[in-house]
């Protein structure tokens, strides 16, 4: 029983951190459709750096840095220019898939040629590591909750998400706020995606762009109304589901493909449930989420 629970930790940490970062960024009013592509890119960069340096932590840090650079880019362009957030996000999603294949395939060949054992470049899944992983993820969630609820930065982020025009009139620098939200949000997405290749899967697979874990994290965040503490609940639910796909599959007598389909169906169902219940009103999306922000005349 304990073993099974511990096995969930890498999956939980990946989903929770990615969903947290995504929700935090979207609170500032930027629609984040780049999530799956940049999740794949982060996971690939973590794998590449870890395999070349044989130090998983360099991979983790590198992935966070690269992803947060993308966060800055998205926040800056989406706020400074009157662009479609959706198109911007989707373009970066495809760019993320492309970049991760261009980066990942040579590294994968290198790992194969050198006959590197995954244990030399991934994080060993010992009990201590997993406990630290779990505790640190929960701590990050609590800190984010505190930042959003109790600090000036949190108020500024929420104001930029609700109505950037009003926020600006009240003296909030919307661009700066969103860039900060982008850096923090995407650093967490980078962190979570690094755990995907270095702890959860212990390796990289060229079909990584087909898995759609970024979209599952998207649904995890949405079904919890982007609240860091509630996200813990939805993330554990999906982590359990994905981790024990096999158990679920056998218990219900399903085939492998139906089990693979299950997280997506549950994701769609949970988003629908969230929207038809009173939760939607209590934890509505930021009012200006995804709306281009244009002041009549402005400097670049």
């Amino acid at each position, binding site marked *: 029983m304990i073993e099974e629970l511990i096995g969930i930790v890498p999956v939980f940490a990946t989903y929770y951190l990615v969903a947290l970062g995504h929700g935090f960024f979207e609170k500032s009013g930027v629609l984040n*459709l780049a999530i799956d592509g940049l999740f794949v890119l982060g996971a690939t960069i973590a794998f590449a750096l870890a395999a070349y340096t044989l130090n998983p932590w360099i991979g983790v840090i590198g992935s966070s840095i690269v992803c947060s650079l993308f966060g800055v880019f998205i926040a800056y362009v989406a706020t400074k220019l009157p662009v479609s957030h959706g198109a911007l996000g989707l*373009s970066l999603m495809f760019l993320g898939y492309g970049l991760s294949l261009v980066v990942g395939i040579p590294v994968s060949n290198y790992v194969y040629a050198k006959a590197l054992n995954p244990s030399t470049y991934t994080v060993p899944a010992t009990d201590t590591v997993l406990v630290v992983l779990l505790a640190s993820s929960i701590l990050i969630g609590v800190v984010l909750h505190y930042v959003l609820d109790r600090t000036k930065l949190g108020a500024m982020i929420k104001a930029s998400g609700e109505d950037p025009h009003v926020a600006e009139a009240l003296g909030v620098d919307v661009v700066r706020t969103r860039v900060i939200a982008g850096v923090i949000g995407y650093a967490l997405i980078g962190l979570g995606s690094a755990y995907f290749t270095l702890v959860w899967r212990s390796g990289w697979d060229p079909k990584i*762009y087909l898995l759609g874990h970024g979209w599952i994290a998207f649904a995890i965040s949405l079904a919890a109304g982007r609240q860091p503490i509630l996200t813990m609940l939805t993330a554990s639910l999906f982590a359990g589901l994905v981790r024990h796909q096999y158990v679920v599959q056998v218990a219900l007598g399903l085939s492998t493909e139906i089990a693979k389909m299950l997280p*997506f169906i549950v994701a769609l169902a949970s988003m629908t449930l969230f929207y038809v219940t009173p939760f939607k009103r209590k934890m509505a999306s930021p009012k200006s989420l995804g709306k281009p922000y244009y002041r009549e005349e402005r400097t670049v």
Partner: protein
Amino acid sequence: MVYLVVLRRTKPLPYASILVPVISILLGVLLSSIILYLLASIPPLALFNLIVRSFTSPTVLKDTLILTLIGLSLVIAFKASIWNIGAEGQFHMGMLVATWIALFTPIASIPVLAKITCILAGAVAGALWAILAGVLRAYVGLDEVPVTLMLNYVAYYVLDVLVYGPWRGRFTYGYIRTDEIPENLWLTLIPGTTAHVEVLATVLIVGLAIWFMFKYTIVGLRLRILGSNPEFLRASGVNVKHMVVLALGLSGAIAGMVGALYLLGDTHRVSYPVEAQTAGYGYLGILVAWLSMLDVRGLPLAAYVVSSLRVTGITMQIAGLGGTAIVFLFMGSVLLTYTVAKVFSEYTIVIRR
């Protein structure tokens, strides 16, 4: 201090519908070539050479026709500001139903009627799959982008379940795939190319019908207003929810039709796992629709350019450089430059002191 100021243009940029796509394709290809040079040391000149040669490749016509159709599907939705990212799933649902009819029903042996049934059934299946997302968007209020996207994964796995299990063929030499569909269902090749007569006919019929719909019918007008001013539509007594479902239904119908056509013309069978075999037309269509500036008349040209980029990717795959990677890079870069370039058709940047 010198400032750069974003200003709304009083008049739209002249020739924007030509300038924006051309500039974004050129800059997007440049961006990809820089990325490929830096990360994979592929010399840009060799890449440009390949791209230019792809424009006259004999296989480019097939992709152009298919992508024009997917582009038509997406233009319907995009004009109504319904961001259908699920053409990939609708395509596979169309393929699924066409496979079922071709392999397991007596209709398959009737000449002509069999083909038409497959294509129309594909359209119905694609429409229903899209309407699922349409209902969630219209009546629940869920954003259609994540919904249509996640339904793509579900569609892949539904087809996988069938191909792996009940539909696995008897004559497959150990591969996990269905049997070939009967030969009387195969489409007719246009001589000298890899494209098919029936696909060309579908492009012409569907293309004209949609152009006519947007230009002369009330439904077309309402769809366009749904995209620009849904409040006005509501105020004038139109049921906006029905229009949302209709936009997705029509869009999905064409995507599903393409799935059926692709089965009858190209693959003749479905192989497991489908998500790894897909040509990605559903996603490439997004690029085609945007590059056409949502103008039906611009679609074939946009599809031609995107097909050439896809052929370039495939040629490089044969050379061992990973075709999927390059197609994704082109797509991402061109979409990115397009998104930014499009701003300048309505806004301008001036220098102020």
